């Protein structure tokens, strides 16, 4: 009996249906084009995966607490721009510049969080405005031109965008960042006291507050975390391609939210899953690579991404409904 019960609760879990969909997707792409599973393509996917994946981890925690952040794509663009400008000015060391960039992210996240919690404006409106401010700032200070990034080898470059080979696969250190941060996020959300608070706040904020949970403080810190992760991801990306573009990360906010939701985290808060988000990140990454490989024309690309995301969400909802009924 308990075995059956456990099995049905596993099937009912949102991560499970996401995993099934991911497997189907991978199978379809692998059959459609043999190159999909080639070392080159897998290496390529693993290079891109962490950059959005890292942001998605923060977004999962934030969504679970009942808020979301539309400014992550803009922060992804601005943070490395600031770092590069500081380095190019010749006044500061690269380490200091990176720190300054992350501190800026802390400030952006704190402003988002403070306005949402203390003034009580919805995070949709606050972070949408922040998106415009941050993206506008990046464009203005660069006058719209991409900056040449730091391309001299060194400790920080290796730390953020170093690469290594395992057999015929080429991986970036960012993959380690993603794995380490994922493990940390799984621990915090599912096993730590803080995770209990995050889920409770998103599920029923008043109940959490009535039990003495500092809901506002938790939310503000989650906004800061998400912003910092977005900035970190932006720096990783800029080092990898050796350029900091003021328009980098455009549209990432929606793609990240799609990853999180496709993975099974509730858009309405209360229910979050890091494992699901990892599956969701893998899913969107394989869609992006897969449809290029099977030869979808470049300009039609987003149509396919959108349709496939919608299809996945519908499938997801149906699987969930079925599982709940049985």
């Amino acid at each position, binding site marked *: 009996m308990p075995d059956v019960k456990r099995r049905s609760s596993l099937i009912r879990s949102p991560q499970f249906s996401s995993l099934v969909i991911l497997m189907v997707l991978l199978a379809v792409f692998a059959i459609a084009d043999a190159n999909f599973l080639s070392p080159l393509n897998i290496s390529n996917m693993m290079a891109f995966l962490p950059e959005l994946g890292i942001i998605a981890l923060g977004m999962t925690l934030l969504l679970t607490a009942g808020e979301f952040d539309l400014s992550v794509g803009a922060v992804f663009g601005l943070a490395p721009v600031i770092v590069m400008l500081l380095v190019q000015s010749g006044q500061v060391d690269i380490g200091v510049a990176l720190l300054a960039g992350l501190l800026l992210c802390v400030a952006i996240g704190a402003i988002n969080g403070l306005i949402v919690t203390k003034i009580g404006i919805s995070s949709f409106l606050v972070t949408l405005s922040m998106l415009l401010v941050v993206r506008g700032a990046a464009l203005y200070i660069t006058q719209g031109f991409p900056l040449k990034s730091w391309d001299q080898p060194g400790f920080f470059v290796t730390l953020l965008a170093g690469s290594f080979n395992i057999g015929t696969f080429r991986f970036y250190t960012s993959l380690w960042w993603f794995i380490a941060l994922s493990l940390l996020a799984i621990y915090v959300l599912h096993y*730590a006291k803080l995770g*209990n*608070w995050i*889920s*409770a706040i998103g599920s029923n904020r008043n109940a*959490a507050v*009535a*039990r*003495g949970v500092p809901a506002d403080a938790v939310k503000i810190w989650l906004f800061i975390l998400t912003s910092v992760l977005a900035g970190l991801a932006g720096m990783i990306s800029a080092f990898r391609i050796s350029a900091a573009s003021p328009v980098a990360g455009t549209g990432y906010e929606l793609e990240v939210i799609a990853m999180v939701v496709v993975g099974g985290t509730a858009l309405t808060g*209360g229910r979050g899953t890091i494992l699901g988000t990892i599956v969701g990140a893998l899913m969107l990454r394989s869609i992006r690579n897969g449809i290029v490989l099977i030869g979808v024309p470049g300009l039609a690309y987003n149509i396919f991404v959108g349709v496939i995301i919608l299809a996945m969400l519908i499938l997801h909802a149906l699987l969930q409904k079925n599982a709940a009924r049985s």
Partner: protein
Amino acid sequence: MEVLRLQNLQKSFGSVRALKSASFTLNEGEVVALLGDNGAGKSTLIKAISGVFPVDRGDIYVRGQKVSIRSTRDAMDLGIETIHQDTSLAPDLSIARNLFLGREPVNLKWLGVFAPLDLAKLRDAASALLKRVGISKKLDADALVSTLSGGERQSIAISRAMQFAAKVIILDEPTNNLGVEETHGVLRFVKEVRAAGHSVLLITHNIHHVFQVADRIIVMRRGEIVAEQTVADTDLLTVESIITGADMSALLKETRAK
């Protein structure tokens, strides 16, 4: 023995005097019903006791000690637990996690909010509690609260208050939106709570429920306590007329004479 005493509590919101003056005493192992129409000041009084906002004037005594309640946390630490109809539980969390929300048992306490939950202790304590309150047959400590009925949720919330050895349990409209059978379940539970030695302040619109479980009745009108009677000394019609204010003078005289 006196558990909670309020003395001349006053609270205004702008020019509205929500609480003009409220004084009463709650004794150990007693169920006191707080009655009154909408806007009578019941919820203002409850919020003041449970620490949602401070009062403008007046004193609160817990077991004879004068206390100051500035937050919900203060109230909880003093042993005053408030259970609201809809705001007590997080539906997406398990019963066990709800029971310990805000007071989670953890290992490695020095890690602060990052400390790992003591999951075994959490589940064991929750199961033991569910057994003690007699709902273990139906409920699994790992079940999500969203899968429970309204009556079960009320029972869980009340058990949680009992578990932390609350001296005073405030129930805010516990039978709202419940079916007949569930309502009886909750009322039975209130009696068990009293039998276990807790004091209960019951806020409700339903006078019938009051006569089933309460020892004493306090009636509020327009921010004031207008009557205080033991259930044995009164009847349904009398209480109803006090609430609505019909034929007040005679009744007040009777109350004051006591």
